[in-house]
């Protein structure tokens, strides 16, 4: 039984484990969702609702909500595994560490980013966006949530060394995330206005690619350091 598992098999094991855990504790992934929905519902409440204006605000509301929801979830990305020593075992597994962390991040996205992006169009409509804009809105949010998760992984890794790292997390992550937010919101806005959102969409995609290449390495480096 000593035949070594391939990196992909190892990553697969990690993903299965996290999915099972999430299944045991639905709270962990329901929370950001509920959070997101409530936040987007808060806006109409916080303003006196008047659809014309709401529609203008929709992109901002959606994106800020999306960002904060994923931030909220991100703090749990590595912390628990770090505290109970699981990350140490990952680091000692003889498998490429970055791959394992990428697997964790991917699962995290499946559990938070994906559902968020799925319900977002709903929220958008409730904020007065036309139904026709839903597909585009969905695409922008999907792309956005991916790069947010990737960026978040870096922040989560960096703040592991610190107890209650959630303290620093957002300070470190939000600046990184702002470009995503800007382009994403712009794209969503164009989509809602029914215009072509190609430009910002390409930029979003570029950010995702950038994140996919850099984030796992940066996160792995950060986490390794925090294990010392």
């Amino acid at each position: 039984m000593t035949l070594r598992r391939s990196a992909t098999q190892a990553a697969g094991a990690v993903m299965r484990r996290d999915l099972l855990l999430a299944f045991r504790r639905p709270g962990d992934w329901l929370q950001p969702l509920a959070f997101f929905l409530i936040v987007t519902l808060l806006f109409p409440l916080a303003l006196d609702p008047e659809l014309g204006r709401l529609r203008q605000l929709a992109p901002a509301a959606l994106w800020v909500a999306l960002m904060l929801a994923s931030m909220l979830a991100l703090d749990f990305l590595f912390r628990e595994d770090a505290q109970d020593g699981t990350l140490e075992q990952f680091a000692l597994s003889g498998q490429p560490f970055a791959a394992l962390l990428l697997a964790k991040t991917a699962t995290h996205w499946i559990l938070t980013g994906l559902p968020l992006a799925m319900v977002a169009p709903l929220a958008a409509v409730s904020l007065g966006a036309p139904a026709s804009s839903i597909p585009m809105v969905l695409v922008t949010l999907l792309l956005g949530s991916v790069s947010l998760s990737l960026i978040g992984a870096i922040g989560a890794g960096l703040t592991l060394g610190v107890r209650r790292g959630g303290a620093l997390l957002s300070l470190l992550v939000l600046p990184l995330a702002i470009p995503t937010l800007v382009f994403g919101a712009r794209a969503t806005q164009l989509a809602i206005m029914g215009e072509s959102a190609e430009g910002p969409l390409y930029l979003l995609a570029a950010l995702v690619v950038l994140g996919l290449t850099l984030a796992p390495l940066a996160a792995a480096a950060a986490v390794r350091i925090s294990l010392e």
Partner: protein
Amino acid sequence: MSWAWFHRFGSPPYFYRVAGILVPWFAWPAAILIFVGLTWGLVIAPPDRLQSDAYRIIFVHVPNSWLSLMSYSAMAIAAAVGLIWRIKVGHAVAAAIAPAGATFTAVSLLTGMLWGQPMWGTYWAWDPRIVFELIMLFFFLGYIALRNAIDDVSRADRSSAVLAIVGAVNVPIVHYSVIWWNSLHQAPSVLRVNGPSMPLAMLAPLLVSFLGFTCYFFAVMLVRARAEVLRRERGGDWIREAVAGST
């Protein structure tokens, strides 16, 4: 080429000694150049056709803005050196740059805002360059905060180094923001391919004060870096000699 110099400079005792020698060579020019540059710029240089005297902020704003970018790049590079080659001096330098860089960035923002009032009629505009400069300030602050949050020096060094390197993506964004977005902010009027578009009478004092601020930057950086090096070299016996020698 040989990397000997690289590793020699990376050895704390050597760095400590050389840095000690260099400090005065930057400190004095800094004092003189800044004085000359600013008096020249703020008093002697001719007023601008369009904006009369308001433009004189340029002599503070532009040098600090440039230095804010330069210092971030320098910090990221030093941190990378420390992280990749495990050279403590690199971390020490990065740590020494952060506060100075944060100050430059803050000054750039403040002078920019002051200048914005007469030019754009508002202190604060949601303009790309302004925002990304602000983000850069956040990166500096985040770097410092992360350092302070981790009590073990070597871990703080390397964690914050990762952050510094990641944040480097922001630098080109700041620089090119004026070109990528149609923004309120000045397009490059000095650092241009086909030469500066600025009368020499303004350019000269600008460059002088820029040189001055740069020397100031190096002086401060070296002094702080020496202190940082001392903190890292616990109980290294060269320290006793070094300190004894310097006093």
